[in-house]
């Protein structure tokens, strides 16, 4: 393991592949990209030192094709593999398959992944390490009486969840014991009918919760550090939209206290490399551990900007067996960073995916602005993969500065040919509750943000009435004068001619 990495294969695509390739460039490591048929002209292929063909567009035949990826890595002599996020990043077999083939996997070991990937196993381990969980049952309850006892201890209202559910399905709310008994009966029956057994558990129901997570790193010598928190409460259907650090609700004492818990959680599973401990915070300021994400997160740049630590380079050095070069007390939070996840979705039409060619785009830049993106003029956005096309991250000396910088940069950010969620972020950046730091996971519904976005869009459209009419008048004159319209259209098609291999 204590081998210097000379070449690194990035088993991913899009902005995160580019992010890892840039880190390789800084470290003098040869970067190796992979591409499906859909990605031949993608930015990660262009920027990597080497690029190898992986397979057809479908993820299962390309970026999830674990055997093919290992085969290529072995064939081209890659010293290490970085999985990015998504795809194979949390596949617990990947680390082992890598090490069997003499390749360094940049991430945790199989065992830690197995535990963090299994809710119940993880809870058992964490309980031992005294990590606070959302009050409720430690696992599946045996019968109704146990459920009633646990609910009484946790306090009503409680949620009754099916172990086979997921994504909001099979969850029932009970406001008191009577309701719990009724719901338990029904839920147990349902569960039995569907899965053959009544696997239910009980959890305290919390409102106005915030999602706050801690960036963790831990090296192969057992040294663990946290890089402070990220507030990720602004979500839509459990998908994070806006992340920031620091959280507007944490004081230094709480920051350190929860940070220590996060480090302890990493220790409990003998975690290796970068990961994230996710917590819920209720309105009373209590923190409850949910899970460890055993990968680099989408929102890692927020932490990079406030701590000054390059997490991807740190991941690589940890994977090489190096020790973390800083102590917990060396770390400091400077200023504030906000990230907006810009997705190729139409926020005015139910966030439906939007794919196609981007004939031109303007990526914002300037003081405090960082953009991680795979967009470039002439690129295309594929429907086969995730809709995240860009992350706009703005650093400011305080929340206010990073907010106005985000707002300014969103104005500069234009993407032609596809719809994006930029208008939603424009609305959020100017929204009073966001400005006050009044955040919760139901922020969008609670403050009717989408309605507000629609109103904002109409208002901003109105300001374009005069120039839009002017443009149409200019064009009618142009067409009349030059009789060129048909010719230039046809010539455009001709110069746009292209063959694709």
């Amino acid at each position, binding site marked *: 393991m204590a081998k210097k990495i000379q070449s690194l294969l990035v088993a991913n695509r899009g902005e995160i592949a580019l992010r890892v390739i840039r880190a390789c460039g800084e470290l003098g490591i040869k970067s190796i990209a992979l591409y499906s048929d859909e990605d031949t002209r993608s930015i990660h292929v262009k920027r990597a030192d080497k690029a190898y063909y992986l397979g057809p567009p479908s993820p299962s035949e390309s970026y999830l094709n674990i055997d093919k990826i290992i085969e290529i890595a072995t064939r081209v002599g890659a010293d290490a593999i970085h999985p990015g996020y998504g795809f194979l990043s949390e596949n617990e077999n990947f680390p082992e398959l890598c090490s069997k083939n003499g390749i360094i996997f940049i991430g945790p070991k199989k065992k830690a992944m197995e535990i963090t990937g299994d809710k119940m196993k993880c809870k058992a381990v964490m309980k031992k390490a005294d990590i606070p969980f959302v009050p409720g049952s430690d696992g599946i309850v045996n019968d109704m009486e146990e459920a009633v006892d646990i609910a009484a201890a946790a306090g009503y209202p409680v949620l009754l969840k099916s172990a086979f559910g997921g994504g909001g399905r099979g969850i029932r709310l009970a406001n008191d014991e009577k309701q719990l008994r009724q719901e338990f009966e029904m839920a147990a029956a349902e569960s039995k009918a569907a899965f053959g057994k009544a696997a239910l558990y009980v959890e305290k129901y919390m409102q106005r919760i915030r999602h706050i997570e801690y960036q963790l790193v831990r090296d192969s010598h057992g040294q663990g550090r946290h890089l402070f928190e990220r507030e990720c409460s602004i979500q839509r259907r459990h998908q994070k939209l806006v992340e920031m650090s620091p959280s507007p609700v944490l004081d230094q004492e709480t920051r350190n206290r929860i940070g220590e818990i996060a480090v302890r959680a990493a220790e409990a599973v003998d975690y290796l490399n970068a990961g994230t401990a996710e917590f819920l915070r209720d309105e009373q300021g209590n923190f409850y551990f949910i899970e460890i994400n055993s990968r680099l997160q989408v929102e890692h740049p927020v932490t990079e900007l406030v701590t000054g630590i390059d997490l991807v380079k740190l991941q690589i050095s940890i994977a090489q067996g190096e020790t973390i070069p800083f102590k917990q007390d060396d770390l400091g939070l400077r200023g504030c960073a906000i990230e907006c996840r810009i997705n*190729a*979705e139409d926020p005015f*039409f*139910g*966030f*439906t*995916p*939007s*794919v*196609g060619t981007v004939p031109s785009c*303007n990526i914002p830049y300037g003081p405090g602005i960082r953009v991680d993106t795979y967009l470039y003029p002439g690129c295309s956005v594929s*429907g*086969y*993969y*995730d*809709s995240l096309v860009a992350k706009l991250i703005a650093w400011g000396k305080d929340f206010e500065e990073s907010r106005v910088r985000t707002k300014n940069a969103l104005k500069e950010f*234009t*993407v*032609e040919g596809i719809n994006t969620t930029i208008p939603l972020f424009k609305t959020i950046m100017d929204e009073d509750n966001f400005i006050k730091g009044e955040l919760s996971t139901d922020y969008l519904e609670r403050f009717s943000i989408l309605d507000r976005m629609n109103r904002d*869009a*109409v208002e*901003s*459209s*109105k300001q*374009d*009435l*005069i*120039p*839009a*009419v*002017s*443009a*149409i*008048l*200019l*064009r*009618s*004159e*142009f*067409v009349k004068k*030059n009789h*060129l*319209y048909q010719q*230039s*259209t046809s010539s455009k098609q001709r110069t746009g001619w292209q063959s694709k291999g």
Partner: protein
Amino acid sequence: MDFELGGTKEIANGELVRSIGGGLILVRINDKEYQIKLLKSGSDYFEFILDDSFYTAKIIQSGSSEVRLSINGRTHTVKQHSKLTEILEKSLSLTAKIGGEKILVSQIPGRVVNVLAAVRAEVKKGDSIVVLESMKMQVAVKAHRDGIVKELRVKKGATVSRNDIIAVIE
């Protein structure tokens, strides 16, 4: 000519007055005159200064009654009304309606992962007809009217583009 800016209910009456030399063009919009300083122009691309502000305008799509264009990167649809186009539009929309009413099109591109309705089935407005997958999201295409499914134009596994016909519902 009257222009309506899509989604805003804002209507403006506009006309070109004349070119006054030096790249300056006079237009009248809602009875107010504006001087436009034209900086760059082509069949579908214009840069100009209007009211002391710079604008980049791109014509994305242009029909007889509707123009899609972007102003400084913000996309808009502008409907053009003149007596003639109004008459034309009415007759066109009439035709369109006859055919259009039956046809269910997909609003998004994607792969068909599930077909939920069968030919000859009775469906209500809002019933899911097929489920498409795009960008790891599943999106249902729902019936736009009550009726009987006369035709299903897609199969499971097929790829559809935006505006492709999914089904005919009568």
